[in-house]
């Protein structure tokens, strides 16, 4: 049973696609909200994000979404899924916008892909990293269930996450550098890619999230 899923809305872009994808895979009720009561009462929480990091962090703090997220994660121990900029916001610091302090829930850095960026054969790689890339499932996790190792997910980002504790990395991405594509710690799962835009593999991951009890 999925129960109520709260998608934390801090006003940065359209969250309907996350909500409609969750509904499509069987969520009983999805609330797109920054209301503390609703998030407190939800059974699971999605922490999305699009746009530039400075603006995101500003709005996250202004609407006290940092506290709501920490409550869901630590105090209430609910299953939490962070997506894209939502994942980047979890770490210590981002290089974007000349440097932004993030939530520091996971020690780590958000780095620029670099310009010029090349693959191991010396071919030029475009930035932003936009499109469908393979995710290596470097660790097993309940949210990978039914998804082939190396399945492609949809990415769109110019900055990537590099966490200090490599034990937390469950999905890796190769694009000039090796970047963290998915992280997991206790009841938290985070993806750099957009599961809601990743067709079959992405919908399977969301379905797995709805059935997840928050244990690794």
């Amino acid at each position: 049973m999925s129960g109520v899923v709260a998608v934390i809305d801090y006003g940065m872009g359209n969250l309907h696609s996350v909500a409609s994808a969750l509904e499509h895979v069987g969520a009983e009720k999805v609330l797109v909200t920054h209301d503390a009561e609703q998030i407190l009462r939800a059974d699971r929480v999605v922490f999305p994000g699009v746009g530039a990091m400075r603006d995101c962090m500003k709005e996250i703090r202004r609407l006290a979404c940092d506290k709501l997220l920490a409550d869901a994660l630590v105090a209430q121990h609910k299953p939490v899924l962070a997506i894209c900029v939502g994942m980047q916001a979890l770490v210590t610091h981002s290089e974007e916008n000349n440097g932004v302090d993030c939530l520091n829930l996971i020690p780590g850095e958000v780095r620029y892909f670099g310009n010029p960026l090349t693959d191991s054969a010396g071919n030029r790689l475009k930035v932003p990293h936009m499109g469908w890339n393979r995710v290596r499932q470097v660790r097993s996790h309940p949210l990978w269930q039914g998804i082939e190792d190396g399945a492609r997910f949809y990415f769109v980002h110019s900055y990537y996450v590099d966490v200090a504790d490599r034990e937390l990395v469950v999905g890796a991405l190769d694009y000039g550098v090796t970047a963290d594509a998915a992280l997991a710690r206790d009841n938290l799962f985070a993806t750099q890619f957009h599961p809601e835009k990743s067709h079959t593999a992405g919908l399977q991951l969301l379905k797995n999230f709805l059935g997840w009890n928050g244990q690794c």
Partner: protein
Amino acid sequence: MALAKRIIPCLDVENGRVVKGVNFVDIRDAGDPVEIAIRYNQQGADEITFLDITASHEGRETTVHTVEQIAENVFIPLTVGGGIRTLEDIRTMLNAGADKVSINTAAIHNPELVRDAAERFGSQCIVVAIDAKRVEDVDGKPRYEIFTHGGRKPTGIDAVAWARKMAELGAGEILLTSMDRDGTKNGFELGVTRAITDAVEIPVIASGGVGNLDHLVEGITLGGADAVLAASIFHFGEYTVPEAKAYMAEHGIEVRL
């Protein structure tokens, strides 16, 4: 390289119906945009582009509603273009469920719109559409110029320099259409495709002229495009998206199968 080259079916929509004409005249009705978008999503298209060619204001409201319906049923990225003039227009389309918005003529009248939009909404959702046409060669080298009004009105702007400028202002992607080829089924204009893909760091979608699967392959291998966009070959059932992908894979192109 592991990043897949993308295949993007394009829906040219007028008053709520998908249409496609040769060089924008002799428009043929291809059906309901929501049904068609769902079909391409099921077929494994990598993205969908929705270009609104409706002229009237009333028609625009229909467009927002159609975009909403597509977004609710399609779980791949959706780009919406056509008539986007202001930050408010962009917000309306993003709120309706578009993942990216394509800006064309408005960028020519006001290039700062691209910068403002990228700052406000992020580069990842700002696509600049460039309609290029080959003009007189300079020193024996082909030159491409931006045209507006469906390829009828020259602007004097060099297409390659413009692409570079748009990338500098914060565009996240370029949608390049050859107005010489659009609707002709003679294949992409590879000269301008290669010139622009070499000139910018951001991804480039090649568009205009796809008539068979070899054209898709050429757009990637010779044109250097990151994605290929096509309309009529898919709408009228000549090829399916899986057929196109299988063919590209046979030719050594990484695709999402």
